[in-house]
């Protein structure tokens, strides 16, 4: 080698090159604040952990929507579709199920002589008393089932076709769209050209964690099988199953434990998200579970007070939930509009997911320091609700003050100079306060972003020497708050002698050996919710 150095120099003469010392690390915004989390009923999707859905794979991942006439729980499907169209980069979905949901495996067996047509069946457990070719478990739990296709090329020995263990396995949805295709061997010792295992279960595991395949002992595709070789036109012959309904959703009588389980899974997922939406759910059990999730994860929770309720009932609905948190933000949209998916006629749909989608869209545009304009709440003239065929079914007038006192943001028709629009007419959180800045959604959004950045950095500064940790954190906070001021998130405060921020980073006075204290005060810019205009007639 022509290197001029060693990595570890002993007693000899030479040069040791030490590892690169990086002092350039810092925070950088990712796009997690363009993603929302949701707990919902769906007809497709994993039930054991949350998964991501985007505009491109929406139908593949969540299935077709179902009518609201069948169940009001189907509203969430419309919310996710609309939010992904209107600005959210993706959604992290935890599918709601009960203990009655049953996921079975699809078993492929080859009849004994003559081994002709493969047999496909569904079983909750892999057979132990009879031979089988394959067991395929599709963890994405499609209510509408999947189709399995299996093929093995012809192998000739002494001029005659013999059984083959190298197979092509395909999973398609009921409309014959390909979901997965794997090529692997039924032989556990098989290796590919790169000396990696070519055993079908290993190939599947390397490709996706949504499918589990087991191979029966001594499994091979017989030369007489309908999955073997080519047809008279030279095309590969596939044994094709009918649509296999391998998943039973079971009851949709969700109880408190079901909501609690879904909430826990959404909290522990590795997928990041900045917002939580209710999907139009009316269930206090789910709403309170998600409110708790919002607190535990420092995320904003946008939810809907049903638009079908009168103003009086809407106030009663929110009062019974007793939320007192700036993380929770309630929208009431007494509007009928066309279903964006076209499955229903004119329906009353929640608008919280729409609002969050617009927040995601807003967050995608950042300044040079990575700050999105979160000081602009998604409310008012600039953020109209652009659904089609909107008809307002309640016209709150005298109730508007009561709605604001109840911390409900009405989504209603408002007239402006340029014409009328259906808009988010207010931007209040559910914090029960008349004065505190916690009442403003923009402040909730900005303060939770700052807390997120600071706590993430603080985690990076763990397990460093105390002096280094204090120094690094101090430098980080100084830059962060200056950038926040540049972005106009924070503004000069009289209480802080004209400064927009103050902070302290120091070892803890009581336990200076292993504990560091970080505290900061920020004066966020507010939102103009009320303007008082007076004209005086002068001579």
């Amino acid at each position, binding site marked *: 080698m022509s290197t001029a150095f060693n990595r570890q120099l002993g007693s000899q003469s030479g040069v040791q090159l030490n590892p690169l010392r990086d002092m350039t690390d810092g925070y950088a915004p990712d796009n997690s604040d363009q993603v929302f989390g949701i707990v919902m009923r769906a007809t497709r999707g994993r039930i054991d952990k949350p998964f991501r859905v985007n505009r491109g794979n929406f139908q593949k991942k969540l299935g077709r929507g179902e009518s609201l*006439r069948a169940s*009001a729980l189907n509203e969430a499907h419309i919310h996710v579709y609309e939010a992904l169209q209107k600005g959210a980069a993706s959604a992290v979905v935890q599918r709601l199920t009960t203990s009655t949901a049953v996921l079975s495996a699809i078993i492929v067996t080859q009849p004994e002589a003559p081994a002709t047509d493969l047999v496909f069946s569904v079983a909750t457990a892999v057979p132990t008393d009879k031979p089988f070719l394959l067991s395929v478990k599709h963890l994405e739990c499609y209510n509408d089932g999947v189709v399995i296709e299996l093929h093995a090329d012809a192998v000739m020995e002494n001029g005659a076709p013999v059984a083959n263990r190298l197979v092509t396995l395909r999973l398609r949805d009921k409309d014959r769209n390909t979901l997965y295709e794997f090529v692997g061997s039924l032989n556990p010792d098989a290796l590919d050209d790169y000396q990696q295992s070519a055993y079908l279960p290993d190939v599947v595991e390397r490709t996706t964690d949504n499918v589990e395949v087991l191979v029966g002992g001594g499994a091979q595709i017989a030369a007489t099988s309908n999955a073997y070789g080519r047809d008279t036109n030279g095309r590969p012959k596939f044994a094709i199953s009918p649509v296999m309904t391998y998943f039973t959703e079971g*009851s*949709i*009588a*969700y*109880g*408190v434990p079901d*909501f609690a389980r879904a909430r826990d899974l959404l909290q522990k997922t590795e997928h990041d998200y900045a917002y939580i939406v209710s999907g139009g759910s*009316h*269930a*206090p*059990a789910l709403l*309170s579970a998600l409110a708790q999730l919002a607190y535990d994860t420092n995320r904003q929770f946008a939810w809907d007070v*049903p638009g*079908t*309720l009168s103003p009086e*009932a809407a106030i*009663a*609905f929110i*009062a*019974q*939930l*007793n939320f007192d948190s700036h993380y929770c933000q309630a929208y009431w949209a007494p509007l009928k509009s066309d279903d964006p998916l076209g499955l229903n006629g004119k329906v009353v749909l929640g608008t919280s997911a729409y609002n969050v989608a617009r927040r995601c869209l807003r967050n995608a545009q950042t300044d040079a320091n990575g700050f999105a304009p979160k000081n602009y709440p998604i409310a008012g003239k600039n953020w109209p609700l652009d659904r089609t065929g909107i008809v307002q079914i309640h016209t709150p007038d005298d109730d508007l003050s009561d709605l604001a006192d109840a911390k409900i943001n009405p989504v209603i028709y408002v007239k402006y100079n340029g014409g009328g629009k259906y808009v988010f007419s207010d931007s209040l959180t559910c914090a029960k306060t008349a004065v505190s800045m916690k009442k403003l959604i923009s402040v909730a959004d900005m303060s939770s972003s700052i807390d997120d950045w600071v706590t993430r950095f603080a985690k990076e500064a763990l397990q460093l020497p105390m002096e280094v940790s204090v120094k690094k954190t101090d430098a980080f906070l100084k830059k962060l708050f200056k950038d926040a001021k540049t972005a106009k998130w924070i503004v000069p405060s009289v209480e802080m002698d004209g400064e927009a921020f103050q902070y302290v980073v120091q070892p803890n006075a009581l336990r200076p050996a292993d504990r560091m204290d970080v505290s900061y005060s920020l004066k966020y810019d507010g939102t103009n919710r009320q303007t008082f205009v007076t004209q005086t007639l002068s001579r």
Partner: protein
Amino acid sequence: MASTLHLGASSLTGKSVNALVEEAFGTFEFPLALRLTNNTPRYLVFPDIRAELKPNLSAPDNQIDVTFKDHAQLTRFASDVDSLSELNQWAEAMALDALDDGQSDEVAAKAPAAGKGQKKAATEPKSPADTAADDAANTDKK
């Protein structure tokens, strides 16, 4: 009236609301007409079943007759009551009284014919099409 179920916070009653619903109405046929009585001092709203209940201070106006279209809807409603009761620490928030025509003939024959009978059952079972067409099909407000 054939059967009464009292719902409250499961942490206070020590019983799962789902088990209580199963015990009280597990043998009943759906759609099932029930009379709900709000025993709390708060105005309660359940959009899923389109029910708005005045507080117990307004008795006897704190009742409403509702038809649950299936067992799942009743279980979800019970979970909602449980959740609200937990939030507010209510041990006995809601009473559910089965209206006579809400159960199968076999069960009706065994059930004692008790109750005030102050109100006629809200609705008769409807076809899904009728239910869909009528927004307020499953409620009869007092």
